[in-house]
């Protein structure tokens, strides 16, 4: 089975801190995604990546950056965390996109105080 592992399930960070959310997939998938999920807003795409060192902005990239130095790992970085970034963050991967299943991690609950 495909496994997408998010390094932290729950985090509490202070405003202004730099935050790293790590995600690893074990199926050699080309595509990886970071979504943010808030009540009533569903999943919103932050960034995605087609390949190592490649990244594309999603719908809400402001305040975030990403890094993909290795194919299996996709990191989401909050350069200076703010309270409005308190949310659940979901990492996902797929082998291509069209017609392919996206596999999700269990999510990381980030609280910024």
């Amino acid at each position, binding site marked *: 089975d495909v496994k997408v592992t998010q390094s932290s399930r729950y985090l509490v960070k202070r405003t202004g801190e730099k935050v790293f959310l790590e995600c690893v997939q074990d199926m050699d998938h080309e595509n990886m995604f970071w979504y943010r999920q808030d009540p009533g807003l569903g999943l919103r795409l932050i960034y995605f990546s087609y390949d190592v060192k490649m990244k594309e902005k999603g719908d809400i990239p402001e305040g975030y950056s990403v890094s993909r130095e290795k194919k299996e790992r996709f990191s989401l970085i909050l350069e200076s965390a703010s309270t409005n970034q308190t949310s659940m963050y979901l990492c996902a991967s797929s082998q291509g996109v*069209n017609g392919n299943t*996206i596999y999700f991690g269990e999510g990381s609950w980030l609280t910024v105080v």
Partner: protein
Amino acid sequence: SQQGEEDPQALSIQEGENATMNCSYKTSINNLQWYRQNSGRGLVHLILIRSNEREKHSGRLRVTLDTSKKSSSLLITASRAADTASYFCATDANDDMRFGAGTRLTVKP
């Protein structure tokens, strides 16, 4: 922007009843997928329907797709309490996946 929009936002039914959720989208798509999310967990793939298909079945799930109306529906028959979850449609029109806000289904025992 979100591509799919689910309707209703919330649905509450009794065990044994059927549950129907709808999804509308804005642009042409290649495929449409439905996912399920248990509270506080990641999403799990349920079923995919391609743009040239009109209906697909998987166990108690039935999905329809009407590309002329840009809409899809997910029917869960003979619902169980364990079906309680949020259900999302996702479309892959532009080499990425966009999800709607989801339908929260509650099945009462």
